[in-house]
Protein backbone atom coordinates (compact mmCIF):
# COMPACT_ATOMS: atom_id res chain seq x y z
CA UNK A 1 0.00 0.00 0.00
CA UNK A 2 1.09 3.58 -0.71
CA UNK A 3 0.03 6.04 1.97
CA UNK A 4 0.05 9.83 1.68
CA UNK A 5 -0.36 11.22 5.18
CA UNK A 6 -1.07 14.97 5.46
CA UNK A 7 1.38 15.66 2.66
CA UNK A 8 2.23 19.24 1.73
CA UNK A 9 4.75 20.58 -0.75
CA UNK A 10 6.23 23.94 -1.61
CA UNK A 11 9.21 24.69 -3.80
CA UNK A 12 10.76 27.26 -1.44
CA UNK A 13 10.34 28.21 2.16
CA UNK A 14 8.28 31.31 1.54
CA UNK A 15 6.59 30.06 -1.62
CA UNK A 16 2.93 29.19 -1.75
CA UNK A 17 1.96 25.61 -1.07
CA UNK A 18 1.52 23.63 -4.29
CA UNK A 19 -0.82 21.48 -2.22
CA UNK A 20 -1.24 20.80 1.45
CA UNK A 21 -2.80 18.27 3.82
CA UNK A 22 -3.20 15.68 1.11
CA UNK A 23 -4.04 12.20 2.40
CA UNK A 24 -5.01 9.05 0.54
CA UNK A 25 -4.15 5.36 0.21
CA UNK A 26 -3.49 3.27 -2.84
CA UNK A 27 -3.71 -0.51 -2.63
CA UNK A 28 -2.01 -3.03 -4.90
CA UNK A 29 -4.11 -3.57 -8.01
CA UNK A 30 -5.99 -0.24 -7.74
CA UNK A 31 -6.72 1.93 -10.75
CA UNK A 32 -6.85 5.54 -9.64
CA UNK A 33 -7.15 8.62 -11.87
CA UNK A 34 -5.71 11.98 -10.83
CA UNK A 35 -6.83 15.05 -12.75
CA UNK A 36 -6.22 18.78 -12.50
CA UNK A 37 -5.45 21.61 -14.84
CA UNK A 38 -1.91 22.73 -15.73
CA UNK A 39 -0.17 24.14 -12.70
CA UNK A 40 -2.42 22.33 -10.22
CA UNK A 41 0.49 20.24 -8.95
CA UNK A 42 -0.14 16.95 -10.76
CA UNK A 43 3.46 16.38 -11.81
CA UNK A 44 4.73 17.49 -8.41
CA UNK A 45 2.46 14.90 -6.84
CA UNK A 46 3.61 12.25 -9.36
CA UNK A 47 7.22 12.74 -8.28
CA UNK A 48 6.42 12.13 -4.61
CA UNK A 49 5.32 8.53 -5.06
CA UNK A 50 8.87 7.26 -5.53
CA UNK A 51 10.86 9.84 -3.61
CA UNK A 52 11.97 11.98 -6.57
CA UNK A 53 10.49 14.82 -4.52
CA UNK A 54 10.17 14.61 -0.76
CA UNK A 55 7.23 16.10 1.11
CA UNK A 56 7.78 19.46 2.84
CA UNK A 57 5.48 18.24 5.58
CA UNK A 58 3.64 15.00 6.24
CA UNK A 59 4.93 11.72 4.87
CA UNK A 60 4.67 9.24 2.04
CA UNK A 61 4.93 5.54 2.87
CA UNK A 62 5.46 2.83 0.26
CA UNK A 63 4.65 -0.58 1.74
CA UNK A 64 5.53 0.96 5.07
CA UNK A 65 8.84 2.53 3.99
CA UNK A 66 9.13 6.30 4.34
CA UNK A 67 10.28 7.89 1.04
CA UNK A 68 12.65 10.05 3.11
CA UNK A 69 14.67 7.07 4.26
CA UNK A 70 17.74 7.05 2.02
CA UNK A 71 18.51 3.38 2.71
CA UNK A 72 15.16 2.29 1.26
CA UNK A 73 15.16 4.59 -1.77
CA UNK A 74 16.19 1.93 -4.30
CA UNK A 75 13.64 -0.54 -2.95
CA UNK A 76 10.98 2.12 -3.24
CA UNK A 77 11.97 3.02 -6.81
CA UNK A 78 11.83 -0.65 -7.77
CA UNK A 79 8.31 -0.96 -6.42
CA UNK A 80 7.02 2.32 -7.87
CA UNK A 81 7.63 2.90 -11.60
CA UNK A 82 7.17 6.34 -13.13
CA UNK A 83 6.23 6.83 -16.80
CA UNK A 84 6.75 10.37 -18.13
CA UNK A 85 4.83 12.15 -20.92
CA UNK A 86 7.56 12.19 -23.53
CA UNK A 87 8.89 8.79 -24.70
CA UNK A 88 12.09 10.40 -26.01
CA UNK A 89 12.95 11.62 -22.52
CA UNK A 90 13.17 8.13 -21.06
CA UNK A 91 14.73 5.92 -23.72
CA UNK A 92 18.47 5.45 -23.20
CA UNK A 93 19.66 2.71 -25.57
CA UNK A 94 19.90 2.43 -29.34
CA UNK A 95 18.20 -0.97 -29.58
CA UNK A 96 14.76 -1.70 -28.11
CA UNK A 97 15.75 -4.77 -26.06
CA UNK A 98 18.88 -3.06 -24.70
CA UNK A 99 16.72 -0.22 -23.49
CA UNK A 100 14.38 -2.58 -21.66
CA UNK A 101 17.38 -4.46 -20.20
CA UNK A 102 18.93 -1.28 -18.78
CA UNK A 103 16.97 -1.39 -15.50
CA UNK A 104 17.35 -5.11 -14.68
CA UNK A 105 21.04 -5.01 -15.68
CA UNK A 106 21.56 -2.24 -13.15
CA UNK A 107 19.93 -4.37 -10.50
CA UNK A 108 22.83 -6.76 -11.02
CA UNK A 109 20.62 -9.67 -12.11
CA UNK A 110 22.21 -12.57 -13.96
CA UNK A 111 21.89 -12.60 -17.72
CA UNK A 112 19.34 -15.39 -17.90
CA UNK A 113 17.02 -13.51 -15.55
CA UNK A 114 17.53 -10.28 -17.51
CA UNK A 115 16.69 -12.07 -20.78
CA UNK A 116 13.54 -13.47 -19.27
CA UNK A 117 12.38 -10.15 -17.82
CA UNK A 118 13.04 -8.30 -21.09
CA UNK A 119 11.08 -10.86 -23.09
CA UNK A 120 8.19 -10.81 -20.63
CA UNK A 121 8.04 -7.03 -20.53
CA UNK A 122 8.13 -6.69 -24.31
CA UNK A 123 5.40 -9.30 -24.56
CA UNK A 124 3.21 -7.39 -22.10
CA UNK A 125 3.47 -4.21 -24.16
CA UNK A 126 3.10 -6.21 -27.41
CA UNK A 127 6.44 -5.11 -28.84
CA UNK A 128 8.27 -8.49 -29.07
CA UNK A 129 8.64 -8.28 -32.82
CA UNK A 130 10.45 -4.94 -32.50
CA UNK A 131 13.06 -6.07 -30.00
CA UNK A 132 15.97 -5.63 -32.43
CA UNK A 133 14.71 -2.31 -33.80
CA UNK A 134 16.26 1.06 -33.04
CA UNK A 135 13.75 3.09 -30.98
CA UNK A 136 14.06 6.22 -33.11
CA UNK A 137 12.35 4.48 -36.04
CA UNK A 138 9.27 3.65 -33.97
CA UNK A 139 6.06 5.69 -33.74
CA UNK A 140 5.32 7.73 -30.62
CA UNK A 141 2.95 5.12 -29.22
CA UNK A 142 5.44 2.33 -29.84
CA UNK A 143 8.23 4.30 -28.16
CA UNK A 144 6.04 4.96 -25.15
CA UNK A 145 5.36 1.22 -24.91
CA UNK A 146 9.11 0.53 -24.99
CA UNK A 147 9.63 3.05 -22.18
CA UNK A 148 6.86 1.28 -20.28
CA UNK A 149 8.49 -2.12 -20.85
CA UNK A 150 11.70 -0.73 -19.34
CA UNK A 151 9.75 -0.01 -16.16
CA UNK A 152 7.84 -3.31 -16.17
CA UNK A 153 11.14 -5.21 -16.37
CA UNK A 154 11.79 -4.00 -12.82
CA UNK A 155 8.55 -5.76 -11.78
CA UNK A 156 6.95 -2.78 -10.02
CA UNK A 157 3.79 -3.12 -7.92
CA UNK A 158 2.70 0.43 -8.67
CA UNK A 159 2.85 2.43 -11.89
CA UNK A 160 2.64 6.20 -11.72
CA UNK A 161 1.71 7.56 -15.15
CA UNK A 162 2.33 11.27 -15.61
CA UNK A 163 0.20 12.20 -18.64
CA UNK A 164 1.37 9.09 -20.48
CA UNK A 165 -0.36 9.99 -23.77
CA UNK A 166 -0.22 13.77 -23.94
CA UNK A 167 2.54 13.75 -26.54
CA UNK A 168 1.01 11.02 -28.70
CA UNK A 169 -1.29 11.08 -31.71
CA UNK A 170 -4.78 9.53 -31.32
CA UNK A 171 -3.79 6.10 -32.64
CA UNK A 172 -0.78 6.01 -30.27
CA UNK A 173 -2.94 7.22 -27.38
CA UNK A 174 -5.44 4.44 -27.92
CA UNK A 175 -2.79 1.72 -27.99
CA UNK A 176 -1.04 2.96 -24.84
CA UNK A 177 -4.36 3.24 -22.96
CA UNK A 178 -5.36 -0.27 -23.98
CA UNK A 179 -2.00 -1.78 -22.97
CA UNK A 180 -1.97 -0.03 -19.58
CA UNK A 181 -5.48 -1.18 -18.73
CA UNK A 182 -4.57 -4.72 -19.74
CA UNK A 183 -1.51 -4.68 -17.49
CA UNK A 184 -3.65 -3.53 -14.56
CA UNK A 185 -6.25 -6.22 -15.20
CA UNK A 186 -3.97 -9.13 -15.93
CA UNK A 187 -0.88 -8.44 -13.84
CA UNK A 188 -2.48 -6.60 -10.95
CA UNK A 189 -0.07 -3.67 -11.17
CA UNK A 190 -1.69 -0.61 -9.58
CA UNK A 191 -2.19 2.35 -11.90
CA UNK A 192 -1.95 5.90 -10.63
CA UNK A 193 -2.98 7.69 -13.79
CA UNK A 194 -2.39 11.43 -14.01
CA UNK A 195 -4.04 13.13 -16.95
CA UNK A 196 -6.30 15.91 -18.12
CA UNK A 197 -8.11 13.62 -20.50
CA UNK A 198 -11.07 12.03 -18.71
CA UNK A 199 -11.55 9.52 -21.51
CA UNK A 200 -8.45 7.66 -20.35
CA UNK A 201 -9.69 7.06 -16.84
CA UNK A 202 -13.36 6.21 -17.27
CA UNK A 203 -12.58 2.70 -16.05
CA UNK A 204 -10.79 3.89 -12.90
CA UNK A 205 -12.23 2.93 -9.53
CA UNK A 206 -11.56 6.34 -8.05
CA UNK A 207 -10.75 9.77 -9.41
CA UNK A 208 -8.91 12.37 -7.39
CA UNK A 209 -9.19 16.01 -8.42
CA UNK A 210 -6.37 18.43 -7.62
CA UNK A 211 -7.79 21.91 -7.35
CA UNK A 212 -6.49 25.02 -5.65
CA UNK A 213 -4.01 23.16 -3.50
CA UNK A 214 -6.26 20.44 -2.20
CA UNK A 215 -7.26 17.02 -3.37
CA UNK A 216 -10.80 15.65 -3.50
CA UNK A 217 -11.47 11.98 -3.93
CA UNK A 218 -14.51 10.67 -5.80
CA UNK A 219 -15.97 7.21 -6.08
CA UNK A 220 -19.00 6.13 -8.14
CA UNK A 221 -17.33 7.91 -10.97
CA UNK A 222 -19.61 6.74 -13.78
CA UNK A 223 -22.33 8.98 -12.39
CA UNK A 224 -19.95 11.85 -11.71
CA UNK A 225 -18.49 11.69 -15.20
CA UNK A 226 -21.89 12.81 -16.48
CA UNK A 227 -21.75 16.01 -14.43
CA UNK A 228 -20.10 18.50 -16.77
CA UNK A 229 -20.02 21.34 -14.24
CA UNK A 230 -17.84 19.48 -11.74
CA UNK A 231 -15.11 18.96 -14.32
CA UNK A 232 -15.37 22.38 -15.90
CA UNK A 233 -14.83 23.96 -12.50
CA UNK A 234 -11.63 21.94 -12.08
CA UNK A 235 -10.43 23.05 -15.52
CA UNK A 236 -10.96 19.62 -17.08
CA UNK A 237 -12.75 19.09 -20.37
CA UNK A 238 -15.95 17.11 -19.69
CA UNK A 239 -16.61 13.98 -21.74
CA UNK A 240 -18.43 14.53 -25.04
CA UNK A 241 -20.96 11.96 -23.87
CA UNK A 242 -21.76 14.11 -20.85
CA UNK A 243 -22.04 17.33 -22.87
CA UNK A 244 -24.40 15.67 -25.32
CA UNK A 245 -26.50 14.15 -22.51
CA UNK A 246 -26.84 17.60 -21.03
CA UNK A 247 -27.84 19.23 -24.33
CA UNK A 248 -30.46 16.53 -24.83
CA UNK A 249 -31.80 17.13 -21.34
CA UNK A 250 -31.60 13.41 -20.65
CA UNK A 251 -32.89 12.17 -17.35
CA UNK A 252 -30.59 10.34 -15.01
CA UNK A 253 -32.96 7.40 -15.25
CA UNK A 254 -31.09 6.32 -18.38
CA UNK A 255 -28.68 3.48 -17.65
CA UNK A 256 -25.19 4.63 -16.70
CA UNK A 257 -22.82 4.27 -19.64
CA UNK A 258 -19.80 2.04 -19.17
CA UNK A 259 -17.58 3.18 -22.04
CA UNK A 260 -19.14 6.59 -22.81
CA UNK A 261 -19.04 5.97 -26.57
CA UNK A 262 -21.36 7.34 -29.25
CA UNK A 263 -22.49 3.78 -29.86
CA UNK A 264 -23.61 3.40 -26.27
CA UNK A 265 -25.50 6.68 -26.38
CA UNK A 266 -27.34 5.64 -29.53
CA UNK A 267 -28.24 2.24 -28.05
CA UNK A 268 -29.50 3.82 -24.85
CA UNK A 269 -31.54 6.40 -26.72
CA UNK A 270 -33.18 3.82 -28.93
CA UNK A 271 -33.89 1.37 -26.14
CA UNK A 272 -35.54 3.96 -23.93
CA UNK A 273 -37.41 6.15 -26.34
CA UNK A 274 -38.45 3.74 -29.03
CA UNK A 275 -40.74 1.88 -26.67
CA UNK A 276 -42.84 4.94 -26.04
Amino acid at each position, binding site marked *: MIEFIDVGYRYAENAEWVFNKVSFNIEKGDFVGIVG*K*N*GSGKSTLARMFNGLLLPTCGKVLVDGWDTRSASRLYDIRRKVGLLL*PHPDHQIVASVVEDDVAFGPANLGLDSREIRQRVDEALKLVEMEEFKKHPPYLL*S*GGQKQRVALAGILALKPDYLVLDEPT*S*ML*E*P*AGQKEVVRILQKINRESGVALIWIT*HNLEEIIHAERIMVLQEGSLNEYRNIKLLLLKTELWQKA*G*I*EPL*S*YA*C*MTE*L*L*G*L*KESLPLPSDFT*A*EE*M*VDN*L*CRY*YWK*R
Partner: protein
Amino acid sequence: MSILLEKVTYVYQSGTPWQKTALCDVSLAIKKGDCVGIMGRAGAGKSTLLAVLNGLLKPQKGRVIVDGIDVTSLPAHKMAFLRQKVGLVFQFPEEQFFAPTVYEEISFALHNAGFTRGEVERRVKDAMDKVGLDYASFKERSLYTLSSGEKRRVGLATVLALKPQYLLLDEPTAALDYEGREKIYAIIREANKRGTTVIIVAHNLEHLANVCNRIIILEEGRVALDLQLEELALYAEEMERLGIYPPFHHQVVHKLQKKGLDINIYIKTREEAACAVKKLFPSLQEGE
Protein backbone atom coordinates in the same frame (compact mmCIF):
# COMPACT_ATOMS: atom_id res chain seq x y z
CA MET B 1 -7.57 35.98 -53.28
CA SER B 2 -6.64 32.45 -52.39
CA ILE B 3 -4.00 29.77 -52.18
CA LEU B 4 -3.87 27.34 -55.06
CA LEU B 5 -1.85 24.15 -55.17
CA GLU B 6 -1.44 22.67 -58.62
CA LYS B 7 -0.24 19.08 -58.76
CA VAL B 8 2.31 19.60 -56.02
CA THR B 9 4.79 16.79 -55.40
CA TYR B 10 7.45 16.84 -52.68
CA VAL B 11 9.98 14.05 -52.23
CA TYR B 12 12.39 13.90 -49.29
CA GLN B 13 15.96 12.74 -50.00
CA SER B 14 15.11 12.40 -53.65
CA GLY B 15 17.45 10.13 -55.60
CA THR B 16 18.73 8.26 -52.53
CA PRO B 17 17.70 4.84 -51.22
CA TRP B 18 15.82 6.67 -48.43
CA GLN B 19 13.68 8.71 -50.78
CA LYS B 20 10.16 9.25 -49.52
CA THR B 21 7.30 10.94 -51.32
CA ALA B 22 5.57 13.18 -48.77
CA LEU B 23 3.17 14.92 -51.15
CA CYS B 24 2.01 13.36 -54.38
CA ASP B 25 0.19 15.37 -57.06
CA VAL B 26 -1.77 17.43 -54.55
CA SER B 27 -4.19 19.98 -55.98
CA LEU B 28 -6.14 22.20 -53.63
CA ALA B 29 -7.83 25.58 -53.55
CA ILE B 30 -8.09 27.42 -50.26
CA LYS B 31 -10.42 30.39 -50.37
CA LYS B 32 -9.88 33.67 -48.56
CA GLY B 33 -11.59 33.46 -45.17
CA ASP B 34 -11.60 29.67 -44.99
CA CYS B 35 -10.67 27.90 -41.79
CA VAL B 36 -9.29 24.55 -42.85
CA GLY B 37 -8.27 21.62 -40.67
CA ILE B 38 -5.65 19.25 -42.07
CA MET B 39 -5.59 15.75 -40.64
CA GLY B 40 -4.02 12.40 -41.36
CA ARG B 41 -1.88 9.72 -39.78
CA ALA B 42 1.76 10.33 -38.88
CA GLY B 43 3.70 10.58 -42.13
CA ALA B 44 0.67 11.45 -44.27
CA GLY B 45 2.25 14.72 -45.40
CA LYS B 46 0.58 17.28 -43.11
CA SER B 47 3.64 19.17 -41.94
CA THR B 48 5.20 19.01 -45.41
CA LEU B 49 2.07 20.66 -46.79
CA LEU B 50 2.43 23.57 -44.35
CA ALA B 51 6.12 23.96 -45.20
CA VAL B 52 5.33 24.05 -48.91
CA LEU B 53 2.61 26.66 -48.38
CA ASN B 54 4.98 29.13 -46.78
CA GLY B 55 7.91 28.43 -49.03
CA LEU B 56 10.07 26.57 -46.52
CA LEU B 57 10.17 23.63 -48.90
CA LYS B 58 10.13 23.97 -52.67
CA PRO B 59 8.13 21.23 -54.38
CA GLN B 60 9.95 19.27 -57.05
CA LYS B 61 6.83 19.35 -59.21
CA GLY B 62 3.77 21.56 -59.43
CA ARG B 63 3.06 25.14 -58.42
CA VAL B 64 1.89 26.95 -55.29
CA ILE B 65 0.08 30.19 -56.10
CA VAL B 66 -0.60 32.66 -53.28
CA ASP B 67 -2.84 35.59 -54.22
CA GLY B 68 -1.91 35.18 -57.85
CA ILE B 69 1.84 34.96 -57.28
CA ASP B 70 3.62 31.72 -58.12
CA VAL B 71 5.74 31.28 -55.00
CA THR B 72 7.51 28.20 -56.31
CA SER B 73 9.45 30.41 -58.71
CA LEU B 74 9.91 33.30 -56.28
CA PRO B 75 13.58 34.33 -55.97
CA ALA B 76 15.15 33.88 -52.54
CA HIS B 77 15.20 37.61 -51.72
CA LYS B 78 11.43 37.85 -52.18
CA MET B 79 10.73 35.03 -49.72
CA ALA B 80 10.52 37.40 -46.74
CA PHE B 81 7.49 38.98 -48.39
CA LEU B 82 5.82 35.57 -48.69
CA ARG B 83 6.54 34.68 -45.06
CA GLN B 84 4.85 37.88 -43.87
CA LYS B 85 1.83 37.11 -45.97
CA VAL B 86 1.75 33.46 -44.93
CA GLY B 87 2.65 33.15 -41.24
CA LEU B 88 3.59 29.72 -39.88
CA VAL B 89 3.39 28.81 -36.21
CA PHE B 90 5.45 25.67 -35.65
CA GLN B 91 4.54 22.94 -33.22
CA PHE B 92 5.79 23.89 -29.72
CA PRO B 93 6.82 27.44 -30.77
CA GLU B 94 8.03 28.04 -27.20
CA GLU B 95 10.93 25.66 -27.83
CA GLN B 96 12.40 28.28 -30.17
CA PHE B 97 12.26 31.21 -27.77
CA PHE B 98 15.58 32.95 -27.34
CA ALA B 99 14.85 36.50 -26.19
CA PRO B 100 14.92 37.48 -22.51
CA THR B 101 11.52 39.19 -22.45
CA VAL B 102 8.11 38.84 -24.03
CA TYR B 103 8.48 42.20 -25.81
CA GLU B 104 11.83 41.31 -27.36
CA GLU B 105 10.61 37.91 -28.48
CA ILE B 106 7.57 39.32 -30.29
CA SER B 107 9.42 42.32 -31.74
CA PHE B 108 12.35 40.35 -33.18
CA ALA B 109 10.74 39.51 -36.52
CA LEU B 110 9.29 43.02 -36.78
CA HIS B 111 12.71 44.64 -36.47
CA ASN B 112 14.02 42.22 -39.09
CA ALA B 113 11.15 43.17 -41.38
CA GLY B 114 12.35 46.78 -41.17
CA PHE B 115 9.45 48.42 -39.33
CA THR B 116 10.02 51.71 -37.50
CA ARG B 117 10.30 51.69 -33.71
CA GLY B 118 6.84 53.20 -33.33
CA GLU B 119 5.28 50.68 -35.69
CA VAL B 120 7.06 47.81 -33.93
CA GLU B 121 5.64 48.90 -30.59
CA ARG B 122 2.15 49.33 -32.03
CA ARG B 123 2.27 45.86 -33.55
CA VAL B 124 3.60 44.18 -30.40
CA LYS B 125 0.82 45.81 -28.38
CA ASP B 126 -1.76 44.78 -30.92
CA ALA B 127 -0.50 41.18 -31.10
CA MET B 128 -0.39 40.84 -27.30
CA ASP B 129 -3.89 42.22 -27.13
CA LYS B 130 -5.08 39.64 -29.67
CA VAL B 131 -3.63 36.74 -27.68
CA GLY B 132 -4.96 38.07 -24.38
CA LEU B 133 -1.66 39.03 -22.71
CA ASP B 134 -1.85 42.38 -20.93
CA TYR B 135 0.82 44.62 -22.49
CA ALA B 136 1.81 46.55 -19.36
CA SER B 137 2.18 43.54 -17.09
CA PHE B 138 3.67 41.06 -19.58
CA LYS B 139 6.03 43.03 -21.86
CA GLU B 140 8.99 42.95 -19.46
CA ARG B 141 8.30 39.45 -18.16
CA SER B 142 10.92 36.78 -18.64
CA LEU B 143 9.68 33.99 -20.89
CA TYR B 144 10.77 31.48 -18.25
CA THR B 145 8.21 32.78 -15.78
CA LEU B 146 5.23 32.13 -18.06
CA SER B 147 2.87 29.17 -17.83
CA SER B 148 2.82 26.74 -20.76
CA GLY B 149 -0.41 28.28 -22.07
CA GLU B 150 1.02 31.80 -21.88
CA LYS B 151 4.19 30.69 -23.67
CA ARG B 152 2.15 29.20 -26.45
CA ARG B 153 0.24 32.47 -26.81
CA VAL B 154 3.51 34.42 -27.07
CA GLY B 155 4.48 31.98 -29.84
CA LEU B 156 1.27 32.84 -31.65
CA ALA B 157 1.77 36.57 -31.07
CA THR B 158 5.21 36.53 -32.76
CA VAL B 159 3.49 35.46 -35.97
CA LEU B 160 0.28 37.53 -35.56
CA ALA B 161 2.45 40.67 -35.14
CA LEU B 162 3.43 40.32 -38.80
CA LYS B 163 -0.28 40.60 -39.67
CA PRO B 164 -0.30 37.62 -42.03
CA GLN B 165 -3.23 37.18 -44.40
CA TYR B 166 -2.80 33.43 -44.08
CA LEU B 167 -2.12 31.81 -40.74
CA LEU B 168 -0.71 28.27 -40.69
CA LEU B 169 -0.56 26.39 -37.41
CA ASP B 170 1.05 23.02 -36.72
CA GLU B 171 -0.59 21.33 -33.70
CA PRO B 172 -1.25 24.67 -31.95
CA THR B 173 -2.67 23.11 -28.78
CA ALA B 174 -0.39 20.07 -28.35
CA ALA B 175 0.15 19.20 -24.67
CA LEU B 176 -1.99 22.12 -23.42
CA ASP B 177 -4.79 21.57 -20.95
CA TYR B 178 -8.47 22.39 -21.47
CA GLU B 179 -8.26 26.08 -20.60
CA GLY B 180 -5.05 26.62 -22.54
CA ARG B 181 -6.56 24.92 -25.56
CA GLU B 182 -9.82 26.87 -25.41
CA LYS B 183 -7.89 30.14 -25.27
CA ILE B 184 -5.77 29.25 -28.31
CA TYR B 185 -8.83 28.24 -30.31
CA ALA B 186 -10.62 31.45 -29.30
CA ILE B 187 -7.65 33.46 -30.63
CA ILE B 188 -7.68 31.50 -33.88
CA ARG B 189 -11.45 31.94 -34.23
CA GLU B 190 -11.09 35.71 -33.75
CA ALA B 191 -8.30 35.93 -36.33
CA ASN B 192 -10.47 34.02 -38.78
CA LYS B 193 -13.42 36.36 -38.11
CA ARG B 194 -11.22 39.35 -38.90
CA GLY B 195 -10.64 37.80 -42.31
CA THR B 196 -7.41 35.86 -41.81
CA THR B 197 -7.44 32.58 -43.70
CA VAL B 198 -6.49 29.81 -41.30
CA ILE B 199 -5.00 26.37 -41.92
CA ILE B 200 -4.51 24.13 -38.87
CA VAL B 201 -2.81 20.77 -38.68
CA ALA B 202 -4.10 18.85 -35.67
CA HIS B 203 -4.91 15.34 -34.50
CA ASN B 204 -8.15 15.86 -32.63
CA LEU B 205 -11.14 16.42 -34.88
CA GLU B 206 -13.42 17.04 -31.91
CA HIS B 207 -11.39 20.20 -31.23
CA LEU B 208 -10.89 21.20 -34.87
CA ALA B 209 -14.61 20.97 -35.53
CA ASN B 210 -15.10 23.88 -33.14
CA VAL B 211 -13.19 26.28 -35.40
CA CYS B 212 -12.91 24.83 -38.90
CA ASN B 213 -15.49 24.94 -41.68
CA ARG B 214 -13.58 22.47 -43.84
CA ILE B 215 -11.58 19.33 -43.07
CA ILE B 216 -8.98 17.84 -45.40
CA ILE B 217 -7.65 14.36 -44.68
CA LEU B 218 -4.35 13.32 -46.19
CA GLU B 219 -3.30 9.74 -46.73
CA GLU B 220 0.14 8.83 -48.02
CA GLY B 221 0.71 12.23 -49.55
CA ARG B 222 -2.62 12.55 -51.31
CA VAL B 223 -5.90 14.25 -50.45
CA ALA B 224 -8.12 11.35 -49.39
CA LEU B 225 -11.13 13.41 -48.25
CA ASP B 226 -11.96 17.09 -48.56
CA LEU B 227 -15.12 17.77 -46.57
CA GLN B 228 -17.24 20.64 -45.37
CA LEU B 229 -17.99 20.47 -41.65
CA GLU B 230 -21.60 19.45 -42.25
CA GLU B 231 -20.48 16.43 -44.31
CA LEU B 232 -18.55 14.70 -41.51
CA ALA B 233 -21.40 12.40 -40.47
CA LEU B 234 -22.03 11.44 -44.09
CA TYR B 235 -18.42 10.31 -44.51
CA ALA B 236 -17.99 8.84 -41.01
CA GLU B 237 -17.08 5.36 -42.23
CA GLU B 238 -14.58 6.54 -44.84
CA MET B 239 -12.96 8.68 -42.16
CA GLU B 240 -12.64 5.81 -39.72
CA ARG B 241 -10.98 3.76 -42.43
CA LEU B 242 -8.38 6.53 -42.65
CA GLY B 243 -7.82 6.34 -38.89
CA ILE B 244 -9.74 9.55 -38.12
CA TYR B 245 -12.64 9.54 -35.68
CA PRO B 246 -15.44 12.01 -36.42
CA PRO B 247 -16.51 14.26 -33.53
CA PHE B 248 -18.76 12.56 -30.98
CA HIS B 249 -21.93 14.37 -32.09
CA HIS B 250 -21.33 13.49 -35.73
CA GLN B 251 -20.89 9.87 -34.68
CA VAL B 252 -24.21 9.95 -32.82
CA VAL B 253 -26.26 11.20 -35.78
CA HIS B 254 -24.41 8.86 -38.13
CA LYS B 255 -25.12 5.83 -35.95
CA LEU B 256 -28.78 6.81 -35.54
CA GLN B 257 -29.11 7.03 -39.30
CA LYS B 258 -27.49 3.61 -39.65
CA LYS B 259 -30.24 2.21 -37.44
CA GLY B 260 -32.58 3.22 -40.26
CA LEU B 261 -33.86 6.37 -38.60
CA ASP B 262 -34.75 9.44 -40.60
CA ILE B 263 -32.44 12.02 -39.04
CA ASN B 264 -30.81 15.13 -40.44
CA ILE B 265 -27.12 14.28 -40.57
CA TYR B 266 -25.89 17.53 -42.15
CA ILE B 267 -25.01 19.08 -38.84
CA LYS B 268 -22.08 21.24 -37.79
CA THR B 269 -22.25 21.84 -34.06
CA ARG B 270 -23.16 19.78 -31.02
CA GLU B 271 -26.25 21.97 -30.59
CA GLU B 272 -27.42 21.20 -34.12
CA ALA B 273 -26.90 17.52 -33.46
CA ALA B 274 -28.92 17.71 -30.23
CA CYS B 275 -31.70 19.44 -32.17
CA ALA B 276 -31.76 16.67 -34.79
CA VAL B 277 -31.85 13.97 -32.09
CA LYS B 278 -34.69 15.70 -30.26
CA LYS B 279 -36.75 15.78 -33.45
CA LEU B 280 -36.31 12.03 -33.66
CA PHE B 281 -37.41 11.39 -30.10
CA PRO B 282 -40.21 13.91 -29.42
CA SER B 283 -40.54 12.70 -25.84
CA LEU B 284 -37.11 14.23 -25.19
CA GLN B 285 -38.35 17.61 -26.32
CA GLU B 286 -41.32 17.66 -24.02
CA GLY B 287 -39.01 16.85 -21.16
CA GLU B 288 -41.64 14.22 -20.30
